[in-house]
């Protein structure tokens, strides 16, 4: 019998190989296609404003002056608020689910958190506008102002009329939306910590909290960073809910109570109004900026993970 490949296996393998390569190439093609299209359609804006587009706060369709600064500020501010609120909460929920809760309770709570992730963002937006915003304006914002008002620097962040819509409410809504994703990742990460490692830490006289802080978090930090980046990339591009509660105002105010905008909310709001070619082109350039920012965060995340792997503290 010959050792030559049978023709059937040969063609099958070639077909399969080709299909896999094509499918993978499609992803790269899509990314390249989106990028070139964004550049092409924003070319008018890029050539008109140059790099100053990035730091100009102007946004005036009448005079034809456009800049990304306020949208960028709003995007980062809401994302940071969302992560500052959501990450510690997710860590605690994940700890509760993995280490503290009785299995009969952990199941339903886990399920509930996953349902949170499945709620369409428009629902969050409507709930945010009609329920959450009035509550914030009546209770939370006055309390924050009373708490921080006297402090020189932080006071400015929590000043102004409590309207219930603005940067802070948008950040808080985003925190809620990000929470299920970060929690689910962190729960899985903590579930992977070997039992014997936790026993060993407890056997040294650690409390549950100390086992969590000293051993489980360092052991799982790679996955935890991944979870945080998942939350970040979700928060940074979230559109519908933010558009409802952020106030859609092109300005950078010192106060977090003030209304603002994000790149995504600006695009959602203004695309239909943009009749002028330069206006439209500026909006597309905003999209390009968001695309690049997200890309940079992904790269930064990967680099950080690589550093963690090689670092002296070295988890697994």
């Amino acid at each position, binding site marked *: 019998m010959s050792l030559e490949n049978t023709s059937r296996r040969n063609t099958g393998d070639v077909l399969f190989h080709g299909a896999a390569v094509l499918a993978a190439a499609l992803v790269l093609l899509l990314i390249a296609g989106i990028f070139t299209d964004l550049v092409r359609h924003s070319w008018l804006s890029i050539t008109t404003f140059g790099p100053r587009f990035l730091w100009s706060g102007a946004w005036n369709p009448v005079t034809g002056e456009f800049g990304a600064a306020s949208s960028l500020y709003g995007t980062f501010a809401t994302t940071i608020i969302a992560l500052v609120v959501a990450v510690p909460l997710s860590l605690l929920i994940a700890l509760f689910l993995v280490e503290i809760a009785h299995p009969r309770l952990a199941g339903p709570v886990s399920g509930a958190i996953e349902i949170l992730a499945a709620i369409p963002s428009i629902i969050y937006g409507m709930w945010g506008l009609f329920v959450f915003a009035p509550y914030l304006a009546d209770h939370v914002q006055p309390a924050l102002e009373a708490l921080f008002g006297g402090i020189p620097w932080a006071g400015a962040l929590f000043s102004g009329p409590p309207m219930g819509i603005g940067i802070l409410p948008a950040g808080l809504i985003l925190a809620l939306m990000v929470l299920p994703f970060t929690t689910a990742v962190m729960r899985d990460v903590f579930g992977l910590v*070997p039992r014997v490692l936790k*026993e060993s830490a407890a056997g*040294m*006289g650690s409390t549950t909290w100390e086992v969590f802080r*000293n051993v489980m978090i*360092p052991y799982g930090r790679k996955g935890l960073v991944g979870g945080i980046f998942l939350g970040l990339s979700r928060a940074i591009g979230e559109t519908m809910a933010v558009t409802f509660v952020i106030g859609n105002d092109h300005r950078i105010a010192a106060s977090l109570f003030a209304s603002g905008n994000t790149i995504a909310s600006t695009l959602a709001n203004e695309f239909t109004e943009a009749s002028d070619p330069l206006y439209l082109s500026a909006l597309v350039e905003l999209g390009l900026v968001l695309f690049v920012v997200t890309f940079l965060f992904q790269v930064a995340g990967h680099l950080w993970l690589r550093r963690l792997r090689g670092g002296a503290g070295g*988890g*697994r």
Partner: protein
Amino acid sequence: MIAIETTSQAESAPPRPGPQPVESSPARGAIAVRNLDFFYGEHQVLFGNGLDIAPRKVTAIIGPSGCGKSTHIRVYNRIYELYRDQRCTGEVLLDGQNLLAPTVDLIELRRRIGMIFQTPTPFPMSVFDNVAYGLRLHYTMPRSELADRVKTALEDAALWDEVRDKLHHSGIELSGGQQQRLCIARALAVEPEVLLMDEPTSAVDPVGTAKIEELVRRLKERLTIVIVTHNMQQAARISDFTAFFLDGRIVEFGDTTELFTNPVDRKTEDYITGRFG
């Protein structure tokens, strides 16, 4: 004798000095097990265990897989309490004090009774931080003293010469045998009176095993060692006393040489001559 009762200072404890040498009282670290039953849920796995573990000796626990050896020693530091379906009845006395009493301070108990596991468990931190872990947990001390005690513990665990240049490397970068000695150093740093070892060499190569056995022989001058092992040669080599477990019961307990050369019970004889297990 230091009490292990819970005290109200547990939450906001004032800085406590580091562990003091324990030369003065020769009898510390004696364990007496009385009528110990153990359950996984409804399933009973230990039946009326009774055992007297001599201070500053090595006691080996042998027996076939699943006979309850590990479960038995996991009662001594109450690590089984991490799992809500596990419970036990009976008494385990550490120097006369029942450590199963609800008033016992688990944190102090686990300082006094250290544990080494089947697989090395270096924490995801540097070699230095691994050894300093318990010291930082239980005591407040100046950095220089901390460094001294870490060095002493690594020397006691016969690891210092191998890691002195990589104290700030990750503990996970060490070899398996080194990792296990790192865990021993970490346990020794807080000056325990008892060291429980649950098949400590089962994941370690022969050279590493020999080093750990040598270490056990030296360490018994200062603390009580209870070692679970499935390796009868190991028990014969390093222990002073041996307990033979079968199906959750202690079949025979006595002087190691005596038990291996002249077993009283037929089942012990069958096991050590390799007729089952």
